[in-house]
């Protein structure tokens, strides 16, 4: 360490030396010819400061030098910077400012190097503001504070000019705005308070005036185009020269003025608003509408409402159309679900396809729109057409696709696709149980009368239904399909059995389909008096069945059977394909040529309704196998029937149809009964776990539990509750009749 006595430097002497260096620096900054600082220059200046600060008191000049440092800046700013800024205006002033600021930063850098020793020791010891900060704050206090207002106005007027389409010097703006940021020395206060606030206000004013004219002059799509363009530009503006923290605030302002303020006016524009766009399928404009309105709070709600309204109206119009078509139909065909209804379902499917595409494409799959679509479809899908519920229509529609020779001729893929869509529509239908019941009826007919076109499709729709409605929903239907496979196997075994026991052969080919009771719709089984030939068949089959399984009871449902019988007419023998009932009736005429109505009723042991239906099909319809006296179109109890031996037809084999009884009423009744059980079970389940529950909650929970299958009527629930009270499952609370208690 150097211990030799150093010569003390006094303040004036030392500062004089420093002053020279500072002047040189100023000259460089002003662009006057001056050689650069050499490292020696720099070392000398630094050493001078070092020495002046390390002398023993009273010759330690740290404090004085710290002040002189600041004074150097102040002097330079007052004498050079401010005058040059004051004489310039607008863009020129901005340029000068940018230049002066960058010079100032250079000056701070150099000076703070010369005085660096102060930073290291004196400043840190006394916790004073460091040199760099002192230097920068001089500019802030003297320059920035004086001209920030002018600068801000100049910048904003440039931005406004750019908004109007002029070219401006973006780099300049970027530099000026950087000053606002840098001058805050790490805090954004200056930028925000001295510039951003004013910009936002100006922006709001600017777009508020624009919007006022646009909303009056432009159509909704044009307005949206402009709005989207403005938003895009503002975003670019931020990228080009504003601070990134302004983006959100700026866009919000613009959105507020352009969209929030006029949202409803825009959507409701009479000839071009949201309604019109939906009506005219303006997909692109709708997408734009979604993009814009998704930016503002609660902006999409009105759009989704209009969407819902629109879809509801379209759907309701379809229902109305189908209604009208149905009421124009011939009255005798009214109860049958016909072609019109098929077309109706098709149209509903198309409508759904169309608007699902809207939701996923225009509205980017937003939940609000999914919900709107669902609600809209629920409105008209539960209306029903001329007495048929949509549950029934859908079931019939499926039947038409799945059965042989249905009205729809479709490729395998098209069938799959259509089934998929029907299942999706089912989601909107609240009476899913009703659909299931109708579907089962139709499925039973397809399976039992061998009308199903394709086993794979049958199974595929069941898989789809299972996915959507759960396993419970389809378990019976699946059972039905499986039953039939098993039955085929059974039939082969039965035929083997007959060939092994020729003595048992009844002499008639017999095929029996054994079904599982629970899976199938319930059929009435009457004790019809079968002809002896058939009785023998039944006996043989029973014997066979006993060899295969014990403890199972066979119930015969003759009403679902068919028979092929050969009838010997005078002209030729014709094979008649008839139902078992029809066959039983015809075989009566093997023993007698003439039979009266009442004789037939007693011999067959069937109900009047059935006998009338059978006789009508055999004596009043297309093929008159029986002659009726008197000969007219209706059956009455005093009629007499006779075998028509003169009957003939050009075909060798004819099918004599027996029109099916209208099952609709029974299906609805069955479903109603099942619902009562379901409600009872649900109430008991809820009460068992809750013990005590208020009326409203019970009803709500019950609706929730059952909602997946059907929408229970409040009145129905109430009736069931009262019934359960009568049956001592529940009681009312003694003090509050609105509360129920579970009685274990």
């Amino acid at each position: 360490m150097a211990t030799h006595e150093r010569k003390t430097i006094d303040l004036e002497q030392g500062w004089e030396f420093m002053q020279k260096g500072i002047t040189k620096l100023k000259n460089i900054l002003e662009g006057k010819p001056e050689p650069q600082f050499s490292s020696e220059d720099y070392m000398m200046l630094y050493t001078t400061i070092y020495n002046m600060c390390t002398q023993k008191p009273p010759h330690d000049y740290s404090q004085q030098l710290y002040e002189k440092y600041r004074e150097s800046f102040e002097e330079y700013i007052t004498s050079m910077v401010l005058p040059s800024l004051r004489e310039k205006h607008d863009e020129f002033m901005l340029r000068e400012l940018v230049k002066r600021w960058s010079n100032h930063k250079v000056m701070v850098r150099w000076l703070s190097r010369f005085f660096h020793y102060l930073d290291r020791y004196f400043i840190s010891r006394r916790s004073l503001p460091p040199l760099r900060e002192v230097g920068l704050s001089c500019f802030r206090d003297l320059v920035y504070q004086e001209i920030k207002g002018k600068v801000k106005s100049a910048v904003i007027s440039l931005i406004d000019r750019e908004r109007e389409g002029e070219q401006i010097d973006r780099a300049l703006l970027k530099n000026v705005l950087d000053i606002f940021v840098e001058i805050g020395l790490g805090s954004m206060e200056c930028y925000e308070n001295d510039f951003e606030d004013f910009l936002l206000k100006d922006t709001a004013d600017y777009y508020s005036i624009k919007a006022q004219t646009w909303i009056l002059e432009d159509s909704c799509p044009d307005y949206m185009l402009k709005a989207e363009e403005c938003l895009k530009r503002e975003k670019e503006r931020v990228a080009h020269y504003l601070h990134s923290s302004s983006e959100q605030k700026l866009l919000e302002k613009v959105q507020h003025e352009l969209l929030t303020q006029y949202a409803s006016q825009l959507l409701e524009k009479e000839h071009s608003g949201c309604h019109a766009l939906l009506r005219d399928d303006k997909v692109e404009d709708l997408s734009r509408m979604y993009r814009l309105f998704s930016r503002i709070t609660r902006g999409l709600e009105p759009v989704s409402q209009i969407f819902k309204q629109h879809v509801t109206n379209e759907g309701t119009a379809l229902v109305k159309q189908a209604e009208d078509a149905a009421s124009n139909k011939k009255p005798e065909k009214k109860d049958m679900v016909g072609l019109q209804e098929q077309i109706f379902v098709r149209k509903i499917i198309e409508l759904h396809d169309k608007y699902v595409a809207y939701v996923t494409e225009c509205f980017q799959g937003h939940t609000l729109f999914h919900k709107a679509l669902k609600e809209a479809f629920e409105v008209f899908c539960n209306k029903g057409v001329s007495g048929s519920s949509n549950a029934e229509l859908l079931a019939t529609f499926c039947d038409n696709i799945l059965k042989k020779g249905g009205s729809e001729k479709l490729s395998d893929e098209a069938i799959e696709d259509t089934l998929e869509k029907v299942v999706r529509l089912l989601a909107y239908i609240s009476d899913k149980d009703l659909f299931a019941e109708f579907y089962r009826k139709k499925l039973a007919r397809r399976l039992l009368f061998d009308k199903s076109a394709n086993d794979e499709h049958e199974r595929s729709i069941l898989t789809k239904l299972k996915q959507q409605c759960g396993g419970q929903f389809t378990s019976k239907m699946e059972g039905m399909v499986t039953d039939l496979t098993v039955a085929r196997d059974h039939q082969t075994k039965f035929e083997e059995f007959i060939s092994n026991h020729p003595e048992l052969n009844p002499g008639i080919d017999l095929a029996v389909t054994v079904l599982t009771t629970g899976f199938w719709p319930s059929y009435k089984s009457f004790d019809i008096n079968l002809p002896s030939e058939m009785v023998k068949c039944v006996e043989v089959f029973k014997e066979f069945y006993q060899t295969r399984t014990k403890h199972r009871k066979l119930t015969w449902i003759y009403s679902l059977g068919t028979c092929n019988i050969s009838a010997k007419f005078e002209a030729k023998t014709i094979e008649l394909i008839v139902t078992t009932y029809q066959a039983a009736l015809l075989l009566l005429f093997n023993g007698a040529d003439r039979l009266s109505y009442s004789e037939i009723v007693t011999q067959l042991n069937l109900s009047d309704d059935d006998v009338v239906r059978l006789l009508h099909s055999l004596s009043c319809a297309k093929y008159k196998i029986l002659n009726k006296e008197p000969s007219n179109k209706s059956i009455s109890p005093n009629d007499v029937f006779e075998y028509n031996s003169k009957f003939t037809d050009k075909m060798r084999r004819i099918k004599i149809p027996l029109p099916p009884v209208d099952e609709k009423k029974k299906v609805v009744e069955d479903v109603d009964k099942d619902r009562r059980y379901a409600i009872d079970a649900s109430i008991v389940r809820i009460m068992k776990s809750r013990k005590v529950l208020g009326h409203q909650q019970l009803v709500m929970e019950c609706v929730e539990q059952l909602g997946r299958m059907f929408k229970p009527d409040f009145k129905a629930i109430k009736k069931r509750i009262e019934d359960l009270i009568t049956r001592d499952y529940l009681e009312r609370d003694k003090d509050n009749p609105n509360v129920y208690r579970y009685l274990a």
Partner: protein
Amino acid sequence: MYKLGRGNRDKVQQFMTITGASEKVALQALKASDWHLEGAFDFFYSQPQISAVNTRHLEDIFNRYKEPDADMIMVEGVSQLCNDLQVDPQDIVMLVISWHMKAATMCEFTRQEFIGGLQSIGVDSIEKFRGKLPSLRAELKDDNKFREIYNFAFTWAREKGQKSLSLETAIGMWQLLFAERNWPLLDHWCQFLQVRHNKAISRDTWAQLLEFVKTIDPQLSNYDDEGAWPYLIDEFVEYLTENGFVQRKK
């Protein structure tokens, strides 16, 4: 005789004058209530007044009305009793009496029911019984007792082995009971039942109707459609509004 202070002796005197009970009973009641007169009255009237009547007399009365070949009072006996009490068998007071007797079935009293009933009413002769009729009738004015009698009426009036009350009987009972209450919708109710319902009445509906009569004003302004009112009452409200019998203001 106990040694009693003057004050207490006065109380015994007062008690005996008012209740007509014996000194022994008076002392018992007053002691039980710590010599508060009011309390003693409550005690006295809430106790079955066994001590006030003579059981043997009661047996005699029962035997006078009972069927010759059964240990019960049947229709004959009841009408004889009504005769002696000088009331119409249709009089509502007979319901109050049956309630006191805890009779299981209309127009029938078992020995136990009849004697227990007379004891609870506190009479041991037909004359006293007749004298009690006004106060029995007055019990209908008491809200709590009315409710008990009302609910009793359901079980009492229904046919043996039935869970619910036949409509005809129910309407008769309602007309009898609500005549006391002046329920303005009574006629509409009965008519509604005959036109729209025409089925038996469940106990729940029976009990809830009283709540309805008591709490819902005849303009139905405080009727809550979402409430737990029985289905039938909901329908009734609908019927009233549909037919314009009542204009509901919401």
